[in-house]
């Protein structure tokens, strides 16, 4: 009995040993949560994988919460040349559609970096058909990422509320999950070309500025700037009152349906919406 048990242990250890020998150390490439960083990270990981194989590479977006025991972590800094190369080859050898999938996925709140890498892995083999190959699990996953980010962009087109300062400057505060303010601002730049406006991402502490009849741009905001800008939400404005009146009049009492309302206008998006803010 004991002998059999010893035999079993030895055999088992041998298996683990063989497995370890065969299983080379995994290289894990990490980078910051920005489009340029991610593209560079993909470039460097790919370069490594050409020698050691794609299965020995993994990509994680920082912060890395839990380090594993036997893998090696490499932090990647952005490099403009590499970004250009990656973007160019996606558009050239796969399709523009695939590039849009990658771009949207990169904006996502979740860590989509590894999915993007696997997506491109299939893509460079398959070419332009890639985005239609929905039987491939990673293509479906990318489609879901794109849908999620695209939906959030559309939500903020609907629910962003501007506060007018002296009827000259329009300021909006939003707290999106995905990094979407630039895409959202593009919509308003066409809509209000001849107005000054800004959209502030409260979570990421940066903003899109749009001067009247000018080009819009992104800018980081310091804490003191954030505090000053916070006050714009308390700015007295008669149209805020009028909108509140309209909003509370237009519903039909006999059809009241809070659940439907929540489905259509999720509660987490109501924080800066005038009609749902508490009255002072």
């Amino acid at each position, binding site marked *: 009995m004991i002998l059999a048990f010893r035999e079993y242990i030895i055999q088992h250890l041998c298996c683990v040993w063989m497995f370890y020998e065969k299983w080379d150390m995994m290289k894990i490439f990490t980078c910051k949560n920005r489009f340029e960083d991610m593209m560079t990270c993909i470039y460097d990981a790919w370069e490594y994988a050409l020698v050691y194989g794609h299965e020995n590479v993994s990509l994680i977006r920082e912060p890395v919460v839990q380090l594993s025991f036997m893998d090696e972590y490499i932090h990647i800094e952005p490099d403009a040349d590499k970004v250009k190369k990656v973007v160019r080859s996606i558009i050239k050898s796969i399709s523009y559609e695939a590039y849009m999938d990658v771009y949207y996925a990169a904006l996502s709140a979740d860590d989509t970096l590894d999915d993007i890498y696997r997506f491109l892995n299939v893509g460079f083999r398959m070419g332009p058909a890639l985005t*239609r190959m929905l039987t491939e699990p990673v293509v479906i996953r990318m489609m879901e990422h794109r849908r999620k980010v695209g939906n959030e962009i559309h939500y903020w087109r609907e629910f962003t509320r501007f506060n*007018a300062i002296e009827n000259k400057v329009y300021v*909006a505060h939003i707290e999106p999950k995905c990094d979407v303010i630039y895409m959202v601002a593009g919509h308003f730049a066409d809509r209000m070309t001849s107005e000054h406006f800004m959209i502030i991402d409260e979570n990421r502490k940066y903003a899109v500025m749009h001067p009247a009849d000018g080009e819009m741009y992104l800018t980081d905001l310091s804490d003191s700037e954030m505090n000053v800008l916070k006050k714009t939400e308390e700015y007295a404005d008669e149209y805020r009152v009028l909108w509140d009146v309209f*909003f509370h*009049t237009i519903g039909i009492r006999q*059809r009241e349906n*809070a659940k439907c309302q929540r489905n259509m206008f999720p509660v987490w998006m109501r924080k800066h919406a005038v009609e749902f803010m508490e009255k002072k």
Partner: protein
Amino acid sequence: MFELQKGLSVQEKLHILADAAKYDVACTSSGVDRKGGKGMLGNARACGICHSFAADGRCISLLKILMTNHCVYDCKYCINRVSNDVQRAAFTPEEICELTVEFYKRNYIEGLFLSSGVLRNPTYTMEKMCETLALLRNQYHFNGYIHVKTIPGASDELLAKAGCLADRISINLELPTEESLKELAPNKSFQTIINPMAKVSNTIAENRIALGKNAHMERSFGNRYLRGSIFNDENMKSLEGKKENTGMIGQTDARSGLKALDLTNDRELGIYGASDHIRPFAPAGQSTQMIIGASGESDYTLLQTTQRLYQSFDLKRVFYSAYIPINEDSALPSLDTAPPLLREHRLYQADWLLRFYGFQADELLSEEKPDFNVQIDPKCDWALRHLDIFPIEVQTASYDMILRVPGIGPRSAKRIMQARRYGSLSYEGLKKMGVVLKRAHYFITCGGHMMFKTPIEEKYIMRQLIGAHSKENWQITHTEQYHQMSLFDDFGVS
């Protein structure tokens, strides 16, 4: 007509006139893509944008107001009828423009929805409305979405002007047959509604051809190419030659009988944009609305009317509004009648089947079975009556057939068509593509086998589907809110 209180504030007027407009349902801003530009305000997106959702869960996309709720008509179902004692008010054109532009800049709304009670007479009212729209477009340079209701009985020139200024133009049919219209809306007649509808429809078609487009409105996902679709060229053509039976829309054959509106004088009217850019005539098409449950029509009549409206007038949308009792009248349902929300829901489902899935009204309902099954949706109901063609194989079936499977919509059908060219499908994959297997698995095979061992029996599948639908149906019919009783809030103990 007098206003008893002079000098209402804008806020009070907004309250009165939004309250009077809330029963109108067509609050959509879809159907037209237009870019913004320097010096003007606004653009339009074909997908439509909702900006908020009211307590009843309906979207708020446009500033939906009446110009005035003074009205000389006495339609029995309407809150603003002349015999009702309600507070009356009227906006000036400037007030409406200011409200629209300022709300728009704050991103509260997508544009203006302007309707009105009949002040003095239809022509005077319509003239006032056109004045407002012209001011908004030309003085305030507003380039966003405008939906205008036309007043039955207004002159052709005003109709033409309204169409040139607005994106969508609509005239409410309210009731699907001549008899019920006579009974409930004594001042309106079928002709005063159908004739302008036909004229607008002809003008839109003429204008589209002049702009180098197809005469018919765009329909999404290529459903014009589906064999059975009501928008199919052949089905449209066969209708034009046909004379319909009496009592319903279509028999007037208004489309060929009436000429299009004359747009030639419009340049002098100053309703084109500042530059030489010519604004198309109602680019987002026209729509209408019908009240459900005020008169005794069956679902079959309503759906047939809907189909005729789509085919003979090329309407972009037909809206349904569950009747909410606000007036007491012997000709109307009593005041404690609950609005028929589930019936309205079923009709909208059927409307989608007509517009996106290539179904026809006669396939869904018939003289023998004039109302929808309340327990399951119209598509499941249709599939259960045609079990002889199911299950179908998703790997090889045609797009038309895949679209007819309950639980598969235009998007997932398109994805199936794309995916199966590159690999074999699986149930897991179908689920990821957006197919609702809860309903679909009774009607499809994938790779030659069904998902479960299912007997193809009508009674069995019906039972299963009713189980799957019951929660949703209950939620639509029971919208009241329940909450936990609290000693502090409910009984005032503190």
